[in-house]
């Protein structure tokens, strides 16, 4: 106890955000993950600057199955399309779509979870049972069902994945809200006549966001994986639009002879998911004030 207080005093010269950044920076794996992800994002965003968009779709029978060389650093696929261009442009869709799904799911999840956690009782019961229904169906199965109901297409897939992802966020938010809503500063706000909406969004939710940010980062990795899986199964982004999962699917018949066709897009999926997990773990530790050293 004494130690904790004294420790706290020593760290007290920095703001809370400063402390979080400080702790995050000390985590080498998380910093590595952040670096790689940032590099990937920049490469994807800046793609038009160094890759001609046409080379993503340009087929050339003469250039089929060129193994990685100076001209095609990732080689070409069965239609002679440049794999590097497809993977980089595919990243724009995979990463961006992942981000959109997570943001939509977060907005729905935080609102529902916040309301459920703050009010409790019947409101909580209704909202959480709805979430339970969604959670009872495996995420992939649910997205597949939604896609087959709405029809194929990138936007429909985004909706499907968001629906599959929000209950998880709602649960996380609700759990952290429940511990906060009984704290005395919430009572103090009630004593001043503060409205429920203001209490939830000014006092309660900002204090419960830590775990949500962590699960969002981890969820982003999972979502990228889900998009790729749907793409691979042929019900996500429609070929020939490049997306890491669809690229894998297109090339799956030739992987045995030309392994780079599978390894390269596979490595992009694996690396980005792994790095997002590193960041998520790092954030979790950084946001926890009990973590020292």
């Amino acid at each position, binding site marked *: 106890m004494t130690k904790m207080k004294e420790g*706290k005093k020593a760290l007290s010269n920095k703001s809370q955000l400063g402390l979080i950044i400080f702790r995050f920076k000390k985590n080498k794996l998380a910093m590595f993950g952040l670096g790689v992800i940032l590099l990937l994002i920049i490469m994807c965003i800046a793609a038009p600057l160094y890759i001609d968009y046409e080379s993503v779709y340009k087929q050339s029978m003469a250039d089929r199955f060129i193994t990685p060389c100076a001209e095609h650093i990732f080689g070409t696929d069965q239609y002679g399309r440049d794999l590097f261009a497809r993977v980089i442009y595919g990243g724009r869709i995979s990463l961006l779509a992942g981000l959109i799904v997570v943001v939509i799911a977060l907005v729905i999840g935080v609102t529902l979870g916040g309301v459920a956690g703050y009010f409790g009782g019947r409101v909580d019961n209704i909202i959480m049972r709805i979430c339970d229904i969604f959670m009872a169906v495996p995420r992939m199965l649910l997205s597949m069902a939604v896609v087959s109901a709405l029809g194929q297409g990138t936007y429909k897939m985004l909706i499907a994945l968001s629906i599959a992802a929000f209950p998880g966020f709602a649960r996380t938010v609700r759990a952290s809200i429940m511990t906060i809503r009984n704290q005395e*500063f919430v*009572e*103090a706000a*009630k*004593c001043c006549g503060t409205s429920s909406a203001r209490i939830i969004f000014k006092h309660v939710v900002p204090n419960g966001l830590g775990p949500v940010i962590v699960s969002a980062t981890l969820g982003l990795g999972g979502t990228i994986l889900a998009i790729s899986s749907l793409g691979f199964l042929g019900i996500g982004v429609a070929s020939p639009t490049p997306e890491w999962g669809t690229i894998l699917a297109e090339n799956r018949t030739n992987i045995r002879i030309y392994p780079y066709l599978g390894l390269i897009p596979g490595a992009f999926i694996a690396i980005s998911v792994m790095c997002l997990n590193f960041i998520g773990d790092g954030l979790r530790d950084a946001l926890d004030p009990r973590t020292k050293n």
Partner: protein
Amino acid sequence: MGTPLIETRNLKKYFKTPSGLLHAVDDVNITINKGETLGIVGESGCGKSTLGRTIMRLLEATDGEVLYEGENILKYNKREMKKMRTNMQMIFQDPFTSLNPRLSIGEIIAEPMKVQKIIKGKEAMKEKIQELMDMCGLPNRYYNTYPHELDGGRRQRVGLARALALNPKFIVCDEPVSALDVSIQAQIINLLMDLQEQKDLAYMFITHDLCVVRHISDYIAVMYLGQVVEYAPRNELFANHCHPYTVALLSAIPTPDLSRRNRERHLLQGEVGNPINPEPGCRFASRCKYATEKCKEPQKLREVSKGHFVRCVLAE
């Protein structure tokens, strides 16, 4: 004797639990006069905090009335209650959870005024906040700092500044010094008493610390399992306490005074039960060495001398 500011009439707060109705506050009648302090003493689970929160309408009362200047505020609707809240405020026990960690000290003190929209303009607001900080002994340099950078005593000052922001006439103080070290505790108690003098505040001071309650209160109510068992002016209570629970409570307090070391002690047997579906009789009877058959009948608060009420058969 001043004019009554806050009164409760037969105030009850029951909680539903799986094993029955928990009588947290059971038929409590108290009066707090303008500019005076009522101390509420009791052990954990006696319902003293629930009483404070029911008066503040943080919890909805099961039955009874809370009168503010004669008007029953439990009947107020949302809008009337919001306006009412400028008159009554609360300060809390735990200086580490009673302030929102994401807001700066300035923002925390501004929050009640923003909600009630009583100050217009950024400059006027800033001025008012600094005035409040001065009043509570907080140097201006803390304006932009965050709660985790302050120690318990200073945090409690922030809580007090926030409570004073709306110019209330009545403050419920829920164990405001229990979590503080003695030297800091004394600073906060002095501050509370100074402010009471300057602003003619009425306090309801909830605590388990009899030394503190004696120092600060004009009247004292001793609670046991949801009921007031003894209620008297401060000096009267300490000189002529007669409920066996008050006697035991007073003799259990350790004091830094060697002359009291070998005093006769009335050590209580057993522990506080819980008031779930209580029997109609005296709730202290199971631990009371004077308990008789008569204690199984319901007991009323009886006036033993002027202003001194006791809920006990012995007081007849």
